[in-house]
Every structure is written in C-alpha cells, then in structure tokens.
C-alpha cells in the first residue's frame, strides 16, 4: 500500500525543507544587520564558507550509506563516546528549538500583543510543532511544499508592493565596512542560519533516492537566493540605518507596504511567513532531537511517547533562556561561538571517525578477500 507514511521523502522535498528551515526565523529576525548595506556581500561570503561545511555533512551522509544517523554514530564511536556525541547534538537541536520559539513569542509580544503573556503563546506554538513532529517526516515534507509556496508567495508580494518605496542609492557606498567587520558578520550569518542545517543530519536518510550532496547544495543555493531577496528588499526599502535600528526589519518593511489606498498596514500577513517557517523549523529540531533522544534511551519505536517530555523540556528552556528581548538580541552576538562546536566541530569529528572506519573496513575487507587466495 502506498501511503505517504511509507513513502520515502523525495530529495526534492528535502531541499524544500532545507529552504524553509533556513528561511525560518531569519525571515523575521532579519539576516545579520551589522554591516547594513553590505549585508548581501556578507551573505555571499557566508554561503561560500558554508560550502565546505555542507560538504562535510553530505560526506557523513554518504559514508552512512542510507543507514540511520544515530545508529551509525553509535557504531562508529562505540557505546559511551557515541552517546556523548548524540547527547551533544540532541542538546543543540532542542536548545535551537527553544530559541526559535522564544524568537516567535518575543516577536509577537513586541509587534502585536504587548499585554499577552508569553508562556501561553509558547505553549500553543510548541504544541502545534510537536503535533507536526508527531506526524512524522513524511507529513512535514508534504507540509513544507505548501509552506514554501505560501512563504515565497508572500515574499514576492511584499517585494512587488514595496517596489515603489525602494531606493537603489541605499546600497551605496559599497564595501563601507572594514574586512574584519565584514568577516565577523559573515561568520555570524554562517552560524545563523546556514550551519543550523546540522539539524538535517539525522533526517536526510529519510530521502532514499538522490545524493545527499545534491540535497545540501541545492538547499544552500536556493536558500541563499531567498535570503538575498530578503536582504535586498530590506536594505532598498528601509535604508541601512533604519534596517540596523529595527528589531524586525522584515516586519517594518511590510509596514510600509501599501496596495492602493485600501489595503495598507497588512504587516500581519508577514507573520504568516514566520509562523509557517517557524513551525517547520521548530518541528524539524524537535524531530531530530526526539530521534536522538530515542536512540540515547534505547527506545527507537517510542517516538510518540518521547515527544511530550521533549515538549515540556523545550518549553522550560524557552521560558528560562532569556529574561527579555534585549537579552535575546544580545545573545545573537555570542550565538556563533556557542554554536560552532555543534555545527562544525562535532560533525568534523564524526566525519573523521567515519572516514577512518570506512577506510579500515575497506582494507579489512580487502584483506579478507585476499586471504583465501
């Protein structure tokens, strides 16, 4: 019987999920605004930095040869070290989910509902993403098809309707900032949102066909494209100073939007983007985290059971992580340094061990093959 629950996810859907994931919170949080009008250059540099890292991710998937990620990690590292690596990754996934949800609730409180307490918002948002996560990766992939259509559609509408207020001179002067500042900003863009794709390590094996290289690089290409459009729209519409000053530049950009004299102030629509892509991002993080935790606790088939404790744990993290929005935005400065070990160092270690294991396996198989003769 062909149901979507048995179907492997196609690599095309996986690419869509990656785009939506990268789109995720950056659609509202804005891509790092430190370099103002030069942000698009930083984005390109960040994409260039991401290429080798994505290559490592894809290489890991290639080495695993379609097997489950966490099982392979346990095989490669052995019991205790494997569990430590899994625990590190699970922590990163779950904390990332908490950060995304916190971004969402802060955003809501600042722009729309200053009097509504945040915890109920977090609960409802997390409940929906836990539900999405509980519906399995196949449903998330179907969901992301529609989600991508909605978000990209709305993005195109916002671009078209702000064309009137775009000023090309906002892009000038190009390369105003010094190289160290540019590099730092690029590094920040690399860590958030590109390298967060480390979340996809346990998920890529759901796509049975298609090479992981293609999936990761297509995803990187299209998401760079989308982020580029967002950055250019924000810079051209708002101007560098305003863009740096605003907490949520995309939202302010939509505020300027006007269609005729009738439809104005439709910035609420842009939060649709945030909800759809934020839900995807959170549920992908929860999914990876749940898979890892299930492996850690050795209950691989109890995913449904594990979602609820994870939900509560993430809710707690989410409520405790920052005292207010200012702290949240300040944390963005330190985030790259916090995330680097999980995004780069842990995968690199996994990759090296994997290469070593694959190599030794090959030599041993060559030896066993040559022994009888």
């Amino acid at each position: 019987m062909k149901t979507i629950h048995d179907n492997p996810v196609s690599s095309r859907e996986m690419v869509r999920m990656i785009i939506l994931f990268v789109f995720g919170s950056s659609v509202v949080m804005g891509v790092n605004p430190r370099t103002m009008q030069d942000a698009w250059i930083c984005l390109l540099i960040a994409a260039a930095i991401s290429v080798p890292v994505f290559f490592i991710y894809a290489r890991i998937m290639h080495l695993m040869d379609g097997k489950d990620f966490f099982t392979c990690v346990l095989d490669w590292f052995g019991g205790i070290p494997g569990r430590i690596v899994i625990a590190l990754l699970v922590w990163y996934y779950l904390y990332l989910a908490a950060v995304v949800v916190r971004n969402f609730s802060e955003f809501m409180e600042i722009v729309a509902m200053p009097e509504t307490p945040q915890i109920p918002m977090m609960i409802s948002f997390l409940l929906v993403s836990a539900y999405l996560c509980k519906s399995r990766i196949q449903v998330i992939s179907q969901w992301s098809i529609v989600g991508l259509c909605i978000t990209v559609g709305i993005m195109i509408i916002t671009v078209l309707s702000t064309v009137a207020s775009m000023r090309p001179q906002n892009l000038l002067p190009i390369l105003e900032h010094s190289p160290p500042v540019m590099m730092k900003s690029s590094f920040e863009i690399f860590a958030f949102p590109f390298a967060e794709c480390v979340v996809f390590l346990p998920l890529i094996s759901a796509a049975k066909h298609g090479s992981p290289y293609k999936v990761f690089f297509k995803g990187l290409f299209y998401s760079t494209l989308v982020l580029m459009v967002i950055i250019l729209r924000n810079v051209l519409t708002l101007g560098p100073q305003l863009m740096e000053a605003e907490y949520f530049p995309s939202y302010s950009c939509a505020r300027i939007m006007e269609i005729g004299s009738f439809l104005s102030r439709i910035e609420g629509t842009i939060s649709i983007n945030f909800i759809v892509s934020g839900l995807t991002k959170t549920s992908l993080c929860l999914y990876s985290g749940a898979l890892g935790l299930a492996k850690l606790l050795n209950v691989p088939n109890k995913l449904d059971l594990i979602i609820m404790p994870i939900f509560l744990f993430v809710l707690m993290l989410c409520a405790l992580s920052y005292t207010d929005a200012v702290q949240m935005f300040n944390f963005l400065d330190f985030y790259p340094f916090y995330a680097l070990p999980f995004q780069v160092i842990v995968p690199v270690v996994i990759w090296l061990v994997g290469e070593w294991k694959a190599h030794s396996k090959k030599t041993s198989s060559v030896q066993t093959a040559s022994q009888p003769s």
Partner: protein
Amino acid sequence: MWNPFRPKQEEKQKRIDEALSRSTERSKATGQSQEEVLSPSMEENCRRFEELFRDNDTIICRKIQNACYPWLEYRLYYSDGMVNTSLLHDGVLRPLVESNEKPGRDLAESLSKQILTASDVQISEKWKDVCDGVTYGDAILFLPHSSRALILSAKNFQLRGVDEPENERILSGPREGFNESLLNNLTLIRRRLRTHDLKLKFRTFGRRTQTKACVCYLDSLVNKNILKLLEDRLNNIDIDGVLDTNYLSELTRDSALSPFRSTGYTERPDVVAAKLLEGRIAIFLDGTPVVLTVPYLFIENFQSSEDYYLNFFYTSFSRMLRILGFFMTITVPGFYIAIVAFHHEMLPTPLLINIASERTGVPLPAAAEAFIMLIVFDILRETGVRMPSNVGQALSIVGALVIGQAAVEARLVAAPMIIIVGITGITALLVPRMSAPIIFVRIFILIGASVFGLFGMMLTLCTLFIHMLNLDSFGVSQLTPSGKLQFQQIKDMAIRAPWWKMIQLPKRTAWSTIRQKTPPRRKE
C-alpha cells in the same frame, strides 16, 4: 511493575467478559446453533419451527395435501405481508395440490425439478437457512419424512420507487437514485457497468439484523491492497445490528476521532458507477439507499456528479467556489474577531469607524457575540432540517426579523456580526458533505483567533492543515497525492479538466491507470 491503572482496567475487562458470556448464553437459549440440521420427521420440524417463532403472529402455517396421493402432506410457512400470495398460489399451492405425478424417490429434488413452478427454489437442511429465509420473506415448505426443506423465494415488500435523491439534486444528468432494496440498487449499477469485470460479493452484518451487504468493485482496476484492508476490517465487525452504511463507515474508518469523513457516500447510481470506474470499492447495504465508496480522497468533498456533465469552465469555477466556500466558512468568524479585537490597524479608517460606532453599546465582547450568534444560526439550521414543513414561514420570520433586525436594533448584537454569521452560514451550504467538520473547525479557529488574534488563527489553521495531511482513508493519504506532482494526478482537483485531458485514472485509487485511448485533440 507498579501500575495504578491496572486494577481498574482488569475490573473493566472482567465486566466486559461477563457481559459477553451472558449474552452468548442468552443467544444460545433463544436462537439455534448455526450448524443444526433438520430432523427427518416433519412433525418434529414443525414443532421446532413453531417453538422458534412462538409469539410471532405474522408467521402463517398452511397445511397442504395432494389430491391424488393423500399421504403427501406438506406444511408451508411464511411471514404474512412479506410474500407475494398470488405467486405462492400459482407457483406452489396449486401444483402441490393438483399434481397427479407420482413424486420420485427424492421428494425434495423431484418437487423442485418437476412439480413446483415457482422460479427460485432452494433445498436446504440447515435451520439457519430456514430461519433466515422466513424472516426475509421466503416461504418454507416442510416435506414428509424428509430432513430437507424447500425455501421458496416469493418476496414482496412495499418499496420506494427509483426517485431522484432529495439531497443530491442536480440540474442536468441522470436522475435515478437508489432505494432501500439491495438487489434493485445492484441492478442500477449492473445496468451501467455491463462487464464481467464487475464483481459483486455478498456478506452479512449484524448478529440480530442479519443485514445483507454487497462489496462491489471492478476486478482489473481495484487496488488489491485496499480491497484486502477493507475485507479485513469488515470481517472484524461483530455488532448486533447494522441499519445504515454509516455504521460500517465508522466501524472501519482510519483515524477514528477525526470529524472529516473517510468514506464517500452517495445515493446516485451514476456517481457509484463513476467511482467504480476509478478503481474504488462500493459497499451496498440492504435497507438503505446510501452507498459507501472507499477510498475517499479529500477532494471528493468538493466534487459533485454534475461537474462531469456540464461544461468544464463552468464546473471548474463552481468547484473553486466550493473550495473557497469551505475556507470562508471556517475562517470568516475568526478573521473578523481577530481584526476587530486585535488588529484594528488592518482596516481602512472609515470602515473601522463604522464598525466601532456599530459596536458601541453592545454589551458582549466580539468573541462571545460571535460564538453565541453562530450557535443561534446552527439552532435555526437544525430546526429547519427537522421541523414539519408547514411551520417554515414562522421560522424564517423568527430567524430574519427577531434574531436579525430586532437584535441589532435593540443593541444586543452589532450589525456587522449579523453579516458575518450570514456569510458563514451561506458558504457552509456550498459544501454539504463537510457540514460536520465545518462546525467544529470553525469554533476551533474562532477560539484561536479570540485568544491570540491573527496569530492564533494562523496556528489553528496550521493545526487543521497538519491534521488534514495526517488523514488516511484505507491506507491512502486523503489530501495529497504521494510522490511527484503530475498534471494527471491533479487534473480533477481544484479544476475539472476537460474530458479529453483526463487520460489517466487517479493513482491513489486505481490499480491500472489508463482511462482512455482517444487520440489527443488537435487545435483547429
């Protein structure tokens, strides 16, 4: 292991077991075991039969003696009102009494082959067949010194004619509808699908009702996995009675708690034929005109048989209207509340001022107002469905004047709310198949919107969408076609493609996919 729930569960299970064993004992006492056979003595059989059907005065016993051979004595039993007496007279009574041929050694065989002129005669030696027969309008003939009885089909019930179904009226196209007779309904289908490929398998449901049902499909098109799944689920059913196909629908559905349907239902033979042609399976049940079809795709909620009988531009438009109607009827109240209570800035200023001035003096908050008005609308609708037709006018006066105009003038309700409820109610009528989920989904979205504004509405819509993605009907995903998106898979969804474009059958339902080999149309 310590488990606080275990004692309770065990107790519950024990109670269920006890109830089950009691009921089986009772059925043993009153009924008969399935395999029990008739005795060789006619007197014994008749006594047993009358014992089984004691206190049932509709059972009539007729004693018959042959004129030439007086030792040939028969007993005929039938249920009064369910048999055609003239047929019984001409085909059974007269030959039995007047025949002067000496019957052969095997009385039952020679009677059925040489003497009786009734068309359908069965020979049986099982009590089960005898009882099933007499309760379904057959006459039972007990023979002297024989452990076999003849079951003579002489059914004659009062049935409704083949009318157009009340709730599936269409402008053009076939106007026949099913009625309550299983065989008549099957005839309507067989007249449309004249192929040996059409398979019709009978089965019985209900321990007490013994309702006949028929599973019907086209053998070369049906997906065998779906068929097997369906048969497994039907085999598991053990219930006392089945009066309508909805019993089967709820007993076999996939996601048990979803308000959305997972089986299609129709009263139109042309619809059933069309669905069989797409590889679906139909389940007919005796005593109801409603026929189930599985698997059920989500888009079938928006399809109507008329879509295929009229011009495709027109029907594509009306299908899109139906989809839009579904979205409107679930979101309009929530959207209004979100705008009025949370996001005033989205409205143009003059409109905002109008709404605000209408709302001054209204005692309830907008959300509560919407909730109450929606309930009132549903009360009116439900009354309209059930009431006798001659009080319709009173209802419309109450509905339109009292609840509409007077409530606004008395400042109990704001005027925009009446418009919103009106739009909601009218658009709900566009998709009659979705009336059950619409009510719940609408309230759900309304609650989301009144707590978190547009964000809450979006969240609830997302939840709804995830739920719809999760829906399965007999292992087939209801909402989305699996795999790569192709035109042939979506040609009949939001639009109805012209017939010359419908080259393939939907993959989700049909095993083989070629619908037509008509040469493609060229542009002229």
